[in-house]
């Protein structure tokens, strides 16, 4: 294949993905008026998404906090500005590193699982079985999952912030010798509500994007077990790109 043909193929693929996602968003939006998500399914989805991702989010956030503390300390020790550790840390973690790493982890844990689950239902014709029972898969399967991911990603980000703070304080104390009091004071003094809210908005947007993308890829599966594998692969890739693009847009708008 020549380079031109390959480039053309890539552009066509991109158009196909964007087109499919747009159509899918359309059908999800239509299902929202009037809102008719299956209530029982929504509760179950919330429960499953939360249980499934809580441990991984805690671990990720804790280490993300530790990493941020070390990196910020590298700057801070250079300028002997120990009282700025908490500030630099909070800024980096709450606004960027926290939501970004938690979002990518969430996409891997929950999004990929969701694509695999819906994909398996599709290839084993369970989705068609639902249609025959006059149950709309969008109401019954898709909306509950998207709602669950949106809500849980936002809540988990709050929990993640707490654990990131713990990870940062412990690491700063153990490695740099920053007294936790100094850390806490500089943190509370300089880190503003807006940093926290900025992270929260990002988390909600990521949750929504992961929900839409993972459901769309799951319902698009064709061709048995390898098809499910391919869909999971494609879903996490598109989610990751979506996370970075949204992060950029929100950062640009929120200042």
């Amino acid at each position, binding site marked *: 294949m020549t380079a031109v043909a390959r480039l053309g193929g890539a552009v066509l693929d991109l158009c196909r993905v964007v087109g499919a996602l747009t159509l899918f968003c359309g059908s999800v939006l239509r299902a929202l008026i009037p809102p008719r998500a299956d209530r029982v399914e929504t509760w179950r989805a919330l429960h499953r998404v939360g249980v499934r991702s809580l441990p991984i989010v805690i671990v*990720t956030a804790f280490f993300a906090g530790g990493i941020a503390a070390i990196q910020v300390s590298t700057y801070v020790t250079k300028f002997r500005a120990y009282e700025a550790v908490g500030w630099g840390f909070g*800024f980096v973690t709450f606004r960027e590193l926290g939501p970004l790493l938690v979002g990518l982890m969430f996409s891997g844990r929950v999004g990929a699982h969701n694509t695999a689950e819906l994909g398996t239902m599709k290839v084993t014709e369970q989705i068609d079985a639902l249609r025959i029972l006059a149950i709309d898969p969008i109401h019954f399967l898709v909306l509950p999952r998207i709602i669950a991911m949106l809500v849980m990603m936002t809540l988990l980000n709050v929990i993640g912030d707490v654990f990131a703070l713990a990870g940062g304080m412990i690491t700063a104390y153990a*490695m740099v010798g920053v007294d936790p009091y100094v850390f806490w004071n500089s943190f509370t003094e300089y880190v503003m509500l807006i940093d926290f809210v900025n992270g929260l908005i990002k988390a909600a947007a990521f949750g929504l994007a992961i929900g839409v993308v993972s459901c769309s890829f799951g319902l698009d599966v064709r061709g048995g077990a390898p098809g499910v594998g391919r869909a999971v692969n494609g879903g996490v890739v598109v989610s990751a790109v979506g996370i970075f*693009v949204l992060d950029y847009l929100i950062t640009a708008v929120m200042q």
Partner: protein
Amino acid sequence: MAEPTTLAGFVAEIRAQVVDTADVARQSAWYLARGRWDWPAIWAQAHEIGVRSVFFVIVCLGFLGAIINLQAGFQATRIIGDASLIGAQSMPLVVRLLGPTLTGMMVATRVGTGIAAEIGSMVVTEQVDALRMNRAPPAEYLVKPRLVACMIMVPALTTIGITAAFFAGMAVAAFAFGTNPGTYADFDVVVGLDLVEGMVKAAAYGVAIPIIASTAGLRARGGSEGVGEATTQAVVASSLAVIVLDFAISGVVFVLR
């Protein structure tokens, strides 16, 4: 492999996963030292892993560079009223931390799932048993080419990703804050140690991701559900490994500094 529902089940599952990963790592090390070098297979994997991820890495890391410079620029204009130094402020962070680690996460996402899906499909269709029947141990025949390819390609992708972040950041600095590209690129803050730290991380991820993802694939059981389960396990475990390795290497370099 049903999802564990109790804490004890959860711990046992993680323990089994770690034991299996260590086993695959040990075997791959053995075959790396002594086994055959199947260059066509390594080349094919390098193409699959490297070439087909380039676009993805450039897009993601490009946006990352833009985001970081936006953040740095807004802070700099707010606090010191001058955004001319944002290149010097952001690039060390990109080289040391964000470049390698987010490239690593992207490779875990794009390549880790691919490896697990491919090997997992071979396991559930007994092709891996057929390999073991014919003097083709999976650690040598399947894992080794992917490992070698990742060891070369992850540092290469990281370099490309950092470059993408650099130029995207330069564009943002120029258009959003009017920073002269020459000024942006004029930093002597990226010292050798930063580069070493970034590349050590990239190399570590290049070793960890293929081993963890292959293990997830080799652990697959059952039909299409098993393959789906293996893919999720691969992306979660290898992303987590990236974060933990980042933490460990950052810590060691900080102490050395």
